[in-house]
Each structure stands twice: as structure tokens, then as C-alpha cells.
């Protein structure tokens, strides 16, 4: 057989195996969505069995010797580098995934899965009891296994760096330190300037009673404004997006005494949804037919939520419509007061409740802690104390019990170390993309004011969505903005915005 043809055959086979994996993942995704939304109460055990089975099928396929053999045939083929870029990238992505799942010996993987489940369960109880000690031992065991696993994945690197690299390929501890130092240096004074400013927002504005029905109508209207069509909007305890091309669904939750809960959840989730609906269609069912990274997905969500949805331009356009939809709830409200209210800055105990400015600081001190943990500078037992010190140092906030402190996130008990940078880089990417966009779309503000938000979305589509996973995020940022990833753009964006809002 013609050797290049031979290579194509192997490649096609490899991709066919992978397509099946992706289809299985979309099935799992539908099952998970059902759990979050419409599943009857008592069906949870039955449903977990289905999810377990699907996970097992997926895992078996991802680690199958068939993939290993095909990968070898393809990557060691003498014409491999003659494959076009997209194909080589597909192979690389499959290889990354294969390594991730096969480098760790099975008994470690099993111990890991088991310990994760135990720790997570105990953490849930610990959180209820506000008692860190209750699950401390399990967390300790889990971290040991996590380190062990990381060592198998790459023995030459710091284990935390190995884990971060799984999330944002190419992200090193040094890069993280540099960006976070810069951010911290800029954010801490900005926060204190805001809270010490004499110009403070009237927060009662966002706490005016607004019925679920009205909020639901607003959610539908938001979808129309942002061009989110062919997708669902349902309700669940935690807002979430399930998206793969033509099957895309978001959820929200309604708080009748705080419309921003649903409003900004819908903005955020639609940001995710638009990304997923606009992955490059020619790469559907291929590894490159997905998001560039978790961090980039978060960036796309926050771009719609914050950069667009919290901008004064957006509210200049949307406020009259919003007033109409809410009846007379906001008929007496001045636009500038309203804009300030939805952009308040206020240090808080909980990460998920944090505003646009303080949010990143929550992530930075978490990574301080993770680094110290992985460098054995602190022990698991010391976590609560260290946590509370950090809250004091960063926010001047006093934590009274572990539930509102170290126990608030599910990430550590779920072994998701090295995961928080995703959220931070979402913001960092956004700042830099926003900077580029304002250069390319000189009239972006006017477009938003006229309600032509679609022109902004189209810019994201062209520059981000349509690139799928052709590039790692740092590479994609360089291609789109012409610059290395840097925190300075995000800082600049925040400084400009909040200087104006708070009269600094």
C-alpha cells in the first residue's frame, strides 16, 4: 500500500474511535442535564448507575490499546509531519488525553477515584457541621494520591504545575506567579480605593422584589438580545451550561429579591453556550471541535457577563427595555445609579458571590495556599488558619467558621487542584481580548448602545469560537492579539471602569 495512504487509513481509524467517544460524552451530558433539571426525585440512584456505566465505557475507550496502537502508527509514521496542521493537532490532542489516562497505573487510579468519593462525601458533612477537622484526614490522604498521580504523569515537574498544565497547557508556576503578583499589586489598592470612595452604589436597587415570571421573561429577552437561539433555558440549583454544537442548554435560578442572580447567570451561561454552538462545524466530532481550554470557556462566559453585560454601554441600550419588562419596579430609577449598583465592589466571604474586581483576589490567595501545600510549606491541618489569615490579609474579613471559610469550595475535596487558575485566566484573557477588540471595532460602544450586540459576538466568533481547539489558549491569545498573555490589559480595563464608577 502507498505509505501516505496507509497513514491516512490509520488516521481515519483513530478519528473514528474518537468520534464514538465524543458521542458517548454527549449522551452523558444529556443524562447529567436531566439530573440537574427534570429528573424525578427518587430516580437518582438509577441515574447514577447509568452515568457510571457511560463513564466506564468512555474510560475504556480512551485507554484502549487500539488507541495506543493507532497513535503509535500515526505519530511514528515517516510522513506524519506531512499531515495538515488540523490533523496533526487532532492527533496531539488524542495523545495528550491518552497519556493522561494511561500513564497512571491502574491501582493508583482506582485508589484515587475511591478516595475522591470518600473525601467529597465527608466534606459535604464537614461543611454542614462547619467542622474542618471532620474531613481533614481524608483530604490529607487525597492530596498524597494527587501528588502521586502527578508524579506518574510527569516526574520531572512540580506536581501542581503538572495539574495546572492539564487545565491550561503551557501554564507554568512561574507564569502564574508573575501574573498573580501583578494582579495583586493592582487589585488590592483598587479595591480599597473603591470601598473608601465617597461615591457608593445604592444596593437596595438590586434587592427590589421582582417575580419569577418577570425574571423568566427577561431571561428569554436576554437570549434574543444576545442571539442565543436553538437552545433551552431551564432552572436548576446551580446555573450550568451543557453545550455541544446543535444541542445546547443553559440553566439559571431565580431569587425574587435579587434579580441579578438570574440576570448575570443567564449572561454568563449564554456566553458559554454561544461558544459551544459556534465551534467550527467542519470539525464536529473531532478533538479540535471543542473549546481551546476551560479557561477560555470561562473567558467567553465572562466576556458576555461582565465586559458586555456590566458595561454602561449595554445598560444605556438595555435599561429602557428592562424597565418595560419589569413593570413599574424600576420606573423611578436613574440609569447611572442602576449601572453603579450592578457594578458594586465589596469584599465578601464567598468566592461565588464576589464581584468583578474582588473575584480574582479570591483565586490568587487560593493559589498561594495550593502552592504552599504542594511545596510542603503548610500541612492540611493548617489550612483553616492559613485560609482565615489570607481573608484577613486580602479583604480584611474575619471568618467565624470553616463553612464560610476553607470549606466553601468543592474543588479541593474533589481533587481539583490547579483548577482555580482557569477562572483567573478567564478574566486575564478577557481583558486582553477586550483591548484588541476596541482596536479592531472602533465603534464597539455605539454598536452596543444601539443593541447590535451581535457585532461583538461576531468578533468573538471569528477570533475565538471558530478556532475551536486548534490552538492552546496562550497560542490563540498571541494569534488574536499579537501579544503574549499578560494581566496588564485586564487590570487596565478594571482601573478605567471603576475609576469612573467610583469617582476615584
Amino acid at each position, binding site marked *: 500500500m502507498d505509505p501516505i495512504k496507509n497513514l491516512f487509513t490509520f488516521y481515519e481509524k483513530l478519528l473514528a474511535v474518537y468520534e*464514538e467517544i465524543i*458521542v*458517548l460524552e*454527549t*449522551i452523558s451530558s*444529556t*443524562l447529567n442535564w*436531566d439530573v440537574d433539571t*427534570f*429528573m*424525578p*426525585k*427518587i*430516580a437518582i*440512584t*438509577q*441515574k447514577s*448507575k*447509568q452515568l457510571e*456505566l*457511560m463513564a466506564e*465505557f468512555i474510560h475504556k475507550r480512551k485507554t484502549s490499546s487500539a488507541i495506543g496502537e493507532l497513535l503509535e502508527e500515526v505519530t511514528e509514521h515517516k510522513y506524519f509531519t506531512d499531515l495538515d496542521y488540523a490533523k496533526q493537532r487532532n492527533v496531539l490532542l488524542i495523545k495528550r488525553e491518552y497519556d493522561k489516562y494511561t500513564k497512571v497505573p491502574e491501582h493508583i487510579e482506582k485508589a484515587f477515584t475511591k478516595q475522591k468519593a470518600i473525601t467529597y462525601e465527608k466534606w459535604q458533612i464537614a461543611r454542614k457541621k462547619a467542622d474542618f477537622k471532620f474531613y481533614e484526614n481524608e483530604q490529607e490522604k487525597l492530596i498524597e494520591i494527587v501528588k502521586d498521580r502527578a508524579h506518574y504523569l510527569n516526574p520531572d515537574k512540580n506536581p501542581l504545575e503538572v495539574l495546572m498544565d492539564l487545565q491550561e497547557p503551557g501554564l507554568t508556576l512561574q507564569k502564574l506567579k508573575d501574573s498573580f503578583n501583578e494582579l495583586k499589586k493592582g487589585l488590592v489598592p483598587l479595591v480599597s480605593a473603591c470601598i473608601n470612595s465617597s461615591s457608593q452604589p445604592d444596593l437596595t436597587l438590586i434587592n427590589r422584589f421582582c417575580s419569577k415570571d418577570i425574571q423568566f421573561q427577561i431571561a428569554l429577552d436576554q437570549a434574543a438580545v444576545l442571539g442565543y437561539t*436553538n*437552545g*433551552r433555558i431551564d432552572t436548576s440549583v446551580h446555573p450550568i451550561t451543557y453545550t*455541544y*454544537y*446543535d*444541542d*445546547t*442548554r443553559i440553566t439559571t435560578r431565580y431569587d425574587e429579591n435579587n434579580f441579578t442572580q438570574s440576570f448575570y447567570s443567564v449572561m454568563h451561561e449564554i456566553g458559554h453556550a454561544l461558544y459551544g454552538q459556534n465551534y467550527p462545524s467542519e470539525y464536529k*466530532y473531532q478533538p479540535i471541535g471543542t473549546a481551546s481550554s476551560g479557561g477560555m470557556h470561562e473567558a467567553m462566559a465572562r466576556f458576555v457577563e461582565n465586559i458586555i453585560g456590566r458595561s454602561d454601554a449595554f445598560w444605556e441600550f438595555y435599561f429602557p427595555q428592562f424597565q418595560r419588562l419589569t413593570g413599574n419596579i424600576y420606573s423611578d430609577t436613574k440609569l447611572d445609579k442602576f449601572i453603579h449598583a450592578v457594578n458594586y465592589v465589596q469584599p465578601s466571604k464567598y468566592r461565588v458571590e464576589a464581584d468583578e474586581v474582588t473575584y480574582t483576589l479570591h483565586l490568587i490567595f487560593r493559589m498561594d495556599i495550593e502552592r504552599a501545600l504542594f511545596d510542603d510549606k503548610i500541612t492540611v491541618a493548617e489550612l483553616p488558619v492559613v485560609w482565615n489569615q489570607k481573608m484577613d490579609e486580602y479583604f480584611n474579613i474575619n471568618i467565624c467558621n470553616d463553612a464560610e471559610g476553607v470549606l466553601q469550595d468543592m474543588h479541593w475535596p474533589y481533587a481539583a487542584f490547579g483548577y482555580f487558575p482557569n477562572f483567573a485566566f478567564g478574566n486575564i484573557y478577557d481583558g486582553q481580548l477586550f483591548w484588541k477588540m476596541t482596536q479592531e471595532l472602533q465603534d464597539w460602544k455605539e454598536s452596543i448602545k444601539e443593541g447590535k450586540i451581535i457585532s461583538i459576538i461576531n468578533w468573538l466568533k471569528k477570533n475565538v469560537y471558530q478556532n475551536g481547539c486548534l490552538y492552546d489558549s496562550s497560542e490563540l491569545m498571541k494569534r488574536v492579539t499579537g501579544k503574549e498573555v499578560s494581566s496588564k490589559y485586564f487590570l487596565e480595563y478594571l482601573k478605567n471602569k471603576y475609576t469612573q464608577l467610583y469617582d476615584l
Partner: protein
Amino acid sequence: MLGEILLSKITKEIDLYTELLSIYKENTILGNVNGLVFWDYEVMMPKKASEQRAEELALLSGLIHDRVTDPKIGNLLKEIKAHPNFDKLKDFEQRNIVLIQRDYDKETKIPTSFAQELSKHSAISTQKWKEAKSKADYSIFRNDLEKMIDLKKQEAAYLDPEKDPYDVLLERYEYGFSKAIYDKIFDEIKTGLIPIINSCVESKNQPDDSLILREVPIEVQNTIAHDLAKLVEYDFNGGRIDVAVHPFTTGYYDDVRFTIEYSRNNFTNMFYATMHEAGHALYDQNLPSKFKYQPVGSGASSAMHEGQARFIENIIGRSPEFLEFYLPHLKKLTGKIFQDVQPEAFIHAVNKVSPSKIRVQAEPVTYSLHIIVRYELEKELFNNKVTVDELPSLWNEKMKDYLGIDITNDAEGILQDTHYAWGLFGYFPTYALGSYYDDQILTALEKDIPDMNEQMRSGKLTNILKWLNQNIRNLGSLYDPLDLIKKISGNEFSAKYFIDRTRKKYSKLYGF
């Protein structure tokens, strides 16, 4: 020493059995996944996602097919059956083996290439059927129908080359049945039913069905649907009601959902769709939990499932007693709409007998004749006594003979059902059978609960529902349908109960 060998043998046998059952369990779970994906497709999915969803369904059915035909199952079955300690397995365990063997035979006797050809042709002929139906032009469908019949004959030959092909298909959909049995039943039904229908149609005492054709807002109908489902003890903690184009039920034990549809100007569509689907759902919600994920932990048969649906729909839902109880409720839920309606007129209107062209719109009395038309034609087709070209006119003749109906075009005649496009020959009889099972089951139920009618009249359904749980639903498929009927009623299966009850009920309503 001997004891040790024996022990190891038993252990080994348990291992084999456990292994076989664990394979079955996984396949069942995979089937559940398929069910949810299908439900989502029908009820929730964004429209544009249909292609993606087709990929998912195709992958799942491929996976399921590979797994149920896995030679490992065949080997395990062989080993278990040949094992000296096979007899030591408990009855229900042996029954599990029997049921797995039956399924395995069904699935493996048909070569994969043929199964693929068949499913490909189903897709094509369904397309053609849709076109033919919309244009009322049988000729568009004719060739594909002919090919489908040939394929089904071949399929029957694969399943059992010794047997008559139509017998093979009939037994495929309802275990224990054959032409011989159906011929006898349907002759009895025809002889018994046609005079009853004639008496109803000719009676001077005709119902005023404009009573039930009053407009009822959709939101109100939705409330009624939920009210009815609660009344028949459908468990909303393990289920939900949604809207879909065709009413259907899907699920397993703790997650059984059904759909209904609303028509503004005829609330009985929603009413009886709810009762019917709730009947299906109740069967699945009340299967024996100790047998969950085992073959015996499923419904006894298609017709028994249909029977359970029709029990709630017809035996309870169309009974004068239940309707008498429910009318005041209905009045309360619907505001002024039915304020002036009298019980007797209401009961008669709901139970109107009138021959119609379309099977799915037929009421419980004439329904059987629609099935008989199909059965008789299918039988002759598979005996080569009738050709595909003769089908439409023979259909129309039979409709005239049995129901006095003139069919003016094939869309309302031979083309009305989707079944033949899918190759579902031999399936229709199970629909009618469900009702015959019901009336025979009822003879036993009335012995145990003599004041059943009084209980229904006071809206007390609990005892009846409990009885159905104990005697049918909780038994899963421990018994084949004919055995189950005999176990419950003490008699061999017969259609005479259905005829007797129909005569009794409708002679009273129509005064003959």
C-alpha cells in the same frame, strides 16, 4: 473431599449465573440510557439537535445489539444449563435463564448483515410511507411494502425455518400465540361483537357527544391530567408528565415518565391518554423491586402491558361508576364549562359507540374490528393468498363488511398506520389482546373485591390498584402471559369475558 468438590461446583455455578446476570444488568442500564435519550428527543431537545441525536441513538442501538448478541452470553447459557447443579437454582433464577435464552435466540438467529438491511429498509420505507400517506397514493409505497414483506418472511425463516412464518412473527410479539389461537379468538369476537355494534348504532337512544366537545383551556386540562394521575396513584416522585405529539410512556422503576397531548375542543383526548399512559407507567413503577435489573423484573408481555394501560383507561376510566364519581371533580376544575351536564348523559357521551375509519380514534368496542381487519389481511399476505396489489381494495371491503364504513382514499385506509413501514407484521393483535386479558382478569378481581363498583363510585381506587399490584405488576415476568392469566383467573384464556362484559355494559347504556 466430595463435599469440597460439590461446593466448588455450586460456587462455580453461582459465578456463571452471577456473571450472566451482571451482563444482563449492564444491558438493561444501557437500555435505560437509550430510553432517556429518546424521551429527550421527543420532549425536550432543541429542534436543531435532531441529527446529533440520531448519531447518539444509532451508537446506542449498535452498542446494545453488539452486547445482546455477544457469544459470551451464549456460552454462559450453555454452561449453566449443562451444569449438574442447574436444578439447584431457584425457580425465578431458572426463569431468568429461560428469558435470557429466548432473547438471545431472537437476537442471534438473525445475521447482523440482514438486521442492518432490515433497519435500512425500514428507514427508506417509512419515508415512502409518509409521502404516500400525505398524497393518499398507495402506489408510492407499494414496492417498498412488498420488499418489506419479503424481508419479514426471511426474518421469520431465520428465527424458525420449520414454522409457518406468520406464526413465528405472532409469537415474536406475544409469547405462546399462533394463528390457531388468534383465529379462534377473533372468530368469537367477530360473531359476538358485530351484533352489539349494530344494536348500538341502530338504537334510538343515542348520546349527545357535543357535551364533551366543549372547549377546555390547556392549563385546565393540564391540571386535570395531574389530578387523574394522582388519583390512580401514579408516583410523581418517580415520574413526570410532559407534552409530546404522540402520547407515550418510557422508563424503568424509579423513573417512569409519560407524555400526553391536548386538544382544546375535546378534553377526552387528554383524559384518556392520561389514564392509558398512567396505566403503562404504573406497571413499570410497580414491578418487583427485588428483581430490578433481572429479566423477571420486567413486564410480562406487550399485550399484558397494553392490558394494564387499558385497565386504567377503560375498565376504570370509562366505567359509569368512576365517571359518576369524577364528574363533580371535573365541574369544579373546569369552572362553568360543564355545570349543566348530567351524569347519565355524560357517561353515555364518553362511551359513545360509532364505527370510524381510523384505528387510533376508535372507541373500545369497535377497536377490535380494526385489529381483525389487519390480522386477516396479514395472515393472507404471509400465506401468499393475497398480493400487495390487492391490499387496498381488500382493506376497504373488510371495513365495509365489519364496520359498515366506506373508505374513500388509501390515506384513511391501508396507509393510516406506520406499522407496516417498520415491518411490524403480527403486532396489531397484541393491542386487542390487552382488553381481552383485562376482562378475564376482572372476573378474579370481582371475586376478591365484590363491591368494586361501589368503591369506584366513591372514588376509592386504592384497593383495586393494590390488587393489580399484587396480582400482576409485582409478578414481573415470572410467568408467560397465558400462564399468568390462568394463574389469576383459574381458567384458560378466552375472549368470551370481553364479549359478555361489552354486551352487558353497552346494552345498558343504549337500552337494548
